[in-house]
């Protein structure tokens, strides 16, 4: 060929669909599967619990809410348990899981590394520490602030804490446009250590009731869910999800490098700032209501990437769906396996996530360029 054809018709066109790489699941299949998976998990979650509600009764209760069924098929208390305890809990699990999933994917895009995870690199820790500070010191420390912010003080503090930690880690681990994964993880260790120390101090000065509130942060649980809490958290996590999802294409470009992304016409500074703030918002809101939940932000995007490739058009929504399914599933197992007691869902995400992380590290050993 001597020249380059200028019009489509002159180009030799083989097919209009991209050829999937060997072993990759096409995007449409994967996302449909994940939606179905989430649906199944949610149904199972709504139908399970220490309190006996049969699936049929659950359906009747839900139908009754929208006026499609009478109140005959179930007891009033079953309805109360389903609507004011179980449903908010499942809904919160979906929100938190989706938020952590997409925040994890965004962090991995930002740091250009598939091992970045909000908890590993200390972002969740920063949020938790800020929340602990508010719980123990809030009224004393900035007197007018908690009064004027009211019940929003805690989530806002968690968001601020997460943002500070995220910015700090980014600054430490990035030099001359390159991010070192080793420094990233080490910075995360440092921040998590600081968080532990801080929470230790707060534990020491806390009174009994504050202590009980503090213990909650280390475990990770959506048990405190209520519609009021959801009304708070849903807009925050929802907004973050929308913002991040729309950054799919710029994230792809960023994967080639910051200069390359700039050459493609992307305002890289703005992209980094928006992504960081949105991810911190999602993580902060999640931590504020459910404590520290490990590994979801690492696991969900990574599995989607393994199956479908790194295109963020698939990874971002996939991470949301898979993250939600993971959290809801872990929570369901946690509250049914040792009923009437409950195991915190963080235990299960750690049980699955930690070995997965180790497996990842082993796989990457060959290509270690730390």
């Amino acid at each position, binding site marked *: 060929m001597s020249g380059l054809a200028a019009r489509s018709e002159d180009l030799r066109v083989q097919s209009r669909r991209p050829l999937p790489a060997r072993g990759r699941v096409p995007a449409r299949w994967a996302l449909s599967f994940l939606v179905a998976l989430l649906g199944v998990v949610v149904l199972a979650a709504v139908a399970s619990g220490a309190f006996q509600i049969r699936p049929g009764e659950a359906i009747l209760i839900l139908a009754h809410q929208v006026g499609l069924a009478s109140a005959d098929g179930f007891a009033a208390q079953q309805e109360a348990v389903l609507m*004011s305890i179980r449903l908010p809990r499942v809904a919160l699990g979906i929100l938190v899981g989706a938020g952590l999933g997409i925040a994890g994917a965004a962090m991995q895009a930002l740091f250009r590394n598939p091992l970045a995870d909000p908890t590993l690199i200390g972002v969740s820790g920063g949020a938790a520490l800020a929340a602990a500070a508010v719980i123990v010191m809030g009224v004393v420390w900035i007197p007018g602030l908690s009064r004027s912010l009211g019940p929003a003080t805690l989530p806002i503090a968690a968001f601020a804490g997460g943002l500070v930690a995220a910015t700090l880690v980014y600054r430490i681990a990035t030099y001359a446009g390159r991010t070192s994964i080793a420094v990233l993880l080490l910075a995360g260790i440092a921040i998590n250590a600081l968080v532990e120390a801080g929470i230790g101090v707060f534990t020491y000065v806390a009174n009994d009731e504050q202590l009980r509130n503090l213990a909650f942060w280390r475990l990770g649980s959506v048990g405190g869910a*209520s519609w009021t809490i959801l009304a708070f958290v849903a807009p925050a996590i929802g907004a973050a999800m929308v913002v991040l999802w729309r950054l799919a294409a710029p994230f792809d470009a960023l994967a080639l490098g910051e200069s390359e992304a700039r050459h493609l016409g992307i305002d890289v500074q703005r992209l980094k700032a928006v992504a960081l703030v949105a991810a911190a918002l999602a993580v902060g809101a999640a931590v504020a209501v459910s404590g520290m939940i490990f590994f979801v932000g690492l696991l969900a995007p990574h599995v989607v990437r393994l199956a479908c490739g790194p295109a963020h058009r698939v990874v971002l929504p996939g991470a949301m769906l898979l993250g939600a399914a993971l959290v809801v599933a872990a929570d369901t197992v946690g509250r049914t396996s040792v009923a009437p007691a409950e195991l915190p869902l963080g235990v299960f995400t750690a049980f699955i996530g930690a070995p997965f992380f180790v497996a990842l590290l082993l796989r990457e050993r060959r290509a270690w360029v730390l």
Partner: protein
Amino acid sequence: MERFLTAAGAVALAAAAATTAAQGPTRVVAVGGAVTEIVYALGAGERLVAVDTTSVYPEAALKLPKVGYMRTLSSEGVLAMRPQAVIAAAEAGPKSAIAQIELTGVPVTTVPSDHNLDTVRVRVRKVAATLGLPGRGEELEKRIAAQWTDAERAVASYATRPRVLFLLAHTGNSALVAGEDTAADAMIRYAGATNAFAGVNGYKPLTAEAAIAAAPDIVLITTEGLETIGGADRLWSRPGLALTPAGKAKRVVAFDALYLLGFGPRMPQAVKDLAARLHGAT
């Protein structure tokens, strides 16, 4: 949404109220060892359908289904027992679980957890009221008052005021000392002794220097705690304890945790026993 749900809760509540109007709730969940004790002391033990894991007295309570630890309840777990009422100590939690239980129409009565005799009286009164047994409640109160007078007399009869250090042992290596505003501090003072760590507030970690400076004559501990440590011999290997008067004479007094610190109906008896052991040991 909340308004709508409370409607469902209200229906459930009304249903519950109807059945319990006459003789009080017949399906009760008790959370907190002292609360359970009071229910049994009121002769209403057969109404309990479940208790928490801190309810270890009387023996019948051990046979009841458990709803988990007092501070980490699961709302569905409690509700699965289909209680008509829940009676809980103030430390029961998490608060969100309690709120969720109430939201479904099951009333939750909270009894105070201060560390004094008056609390015992208030607890008895509240539990009796919830169960619809005011008469028996009054009788129990009178019995407790009589036991208290007896205990006071016994305490006053001792001439000495030994210095006591209360040790709370969680795990193998960490140990906390009870300062002021703790259940142990209150019991020590009621029993006519002095808390060697009266200068601090709440539970604080044990340090060698502080222990030696406090110079306790006796170490007070729960039997469960002593087991956790591994026996009296291992106790004296704790930092500094061996160099205290208590350590040199190897004076340790152990009591069952719920009996000593529960502030239930056996509290006056516990004060009397404690005084006897503390003063008899010196």
